[in-house]
């Protein structure tokens, strides 16, 4: 379980998060939606200690990770996989080496086991046969799939997704959504997905949190979000800016 309590983050003179409270239950997929620049990715990075808050608490499986240094965070990070917006694949390594990286770092040395687990992870994300390619030779969607394979190979209990469908065409986005859902069923992990793509949110979410002006404005089920009559939420879901052509 991931718990966020009164999380405040100031960056320079700007207060990005103004007291976020959130609870992600075991095994559920919580989607955090909100407009670009509202602090969704900043919130996500706090969940794995990549950013330290100005104040507040982040608890992963009951352990407060705020204030821990990089080395103390290592144990927590082994339990959490993260898919970065651009994939963040190591560009000097092949697909296979990228996917095997977490295992090698965990001390797995047996070539047969490495091969078996890498092949398995690459197969889960439907990329069989691409192991020898370099990240540069892959499309955006394939890169995200490889990054996802790298995130799940260490068998994390939590997976964080930062804008998994941003920059992808609708068909690839749909396949990524299905993939997230499939992983959810297969691995039974706790997931947090940050996105502004409502189609993706409706597809993968068990619950949705709407982040607005640095706070959680709405938290509830997909059905509750769909049924909402709040103009602020309706404008966001339907993509209305309030501007006219005149």
């Amino acid at each position, binding site marked *: 379980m991931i718990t966020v309590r009164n999380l405040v983050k100031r960056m320079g003179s700007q207060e990005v998060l103004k007291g976020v409270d959130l609870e992600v239950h075991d095994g559920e997929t919580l989607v955090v939606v909100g407009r670009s620049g509202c602090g969704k990715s900043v919130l996500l990075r706090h969940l794995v200690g990549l950013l330290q808050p100005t104040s507040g608490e982040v608890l992963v499986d009951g352990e407060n990770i705020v204030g821990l240094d990089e080395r103390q*965070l290592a144990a927590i*990070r082994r339990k959490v996989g993260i898919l970065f917006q651009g994939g963040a694949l190591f560009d000097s390594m092949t697909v296979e080496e990228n996917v095997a990286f977490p295992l090698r770092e965990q001390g797995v040395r047996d070539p047969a086991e490495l091969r078996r687990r890498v092949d398995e992870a690459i197969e889960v994300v439907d990329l069989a046969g691409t192991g020898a390619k370099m990240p540069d030779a892959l499309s955006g969607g394939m890169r995200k799939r490889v990054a996802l394979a790298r995130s799940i190979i260490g068998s994390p209990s939590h997976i964080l997704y930062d804008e998994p469908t941003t920059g992808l065409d609708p068909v690839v986005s749909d396949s990524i959504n299905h993939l997230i859902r499939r992983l959810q069923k297969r691995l039974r992990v706790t997931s947090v997905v940050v996105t502004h793509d409502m189609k993706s949110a409706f597809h993968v979410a068990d619950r949705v949190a709407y982040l607005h002006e640095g706070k959680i404005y709405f938290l509830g089920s997909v059905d509750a979000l769909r049924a909402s009559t709040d103009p602020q939420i309706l404008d966001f879901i339907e993509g209305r800016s309030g501007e006219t052509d005149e």
Partner: protein
Amino acid sequence: MMLIRYLGRRTLGASAYAGALVLLGREIFAAFFVGQPRWKLIPAHILDVGARSQLVVMVTGAFTGAVFAAQTFFQFHELGMDSAVGPVVAISMCRELGPVLTGLMVAGRVGAAMSSEIGTMKVTEQIDALRALAVHPIDYLVIPRLLAVMVSMPLLVGLCIAFGILSGYFVGVKLLGIQSAYFMSNLLAFTDWSDVMMGLVKGFFFGIVIAVVSCHKGLTAAEGAVGVGRAATSAVVASSLGILIINFFLTLVLNFVFSA
């Protein structure tokens, strides 16, 4: 008033930068005891830093030695001191020219590459990915590079010195007609192992400057291609200045150490 404000700002900036380097140095030092440095990566970095810098260092040493021998000969010849060319070239190459020029060449070649590689990893979130995979960037990126430069630099300095002296011999004896026996006997009489050691020790410390400054510039690169470009440029400038400044203090200390 403007000038004072400018100088004050620059001084504060330089102090903050020096402080950041010290903090990085502390982290690196601590990593040797509490971290898990990736020793296996060191040979690949030695190949990149050391082996691939050999040609540039040999050419630098050879032409510096050749020019220095020629210039010294033209001045000393007037005084009938042709045979002093050997020791002057050898001592200069060992104590100053070898280590400083090697340092500057390696700072240009390796420092820029190091900072832009790490900077690119930073702006493309690869360093965050490392951190998220529970791998400390100091253990994985900085220490292997630092140790590779620390091992490579004294060897490169030795190479530079050797080629400088060899080309000095060639220019002095074969081109300008100095008697080989006088050249060699004076060279051996006035050049000591302490001169060579001074150059190698300087190279070792210059290597630390290059690696720490370049890694720091990479790790703190600002977003985007411009940020990476700036990191590479400023890594070369800062390492080169660092080498020249630290060279002065090393000269004072090492002269005291080796004369004791």
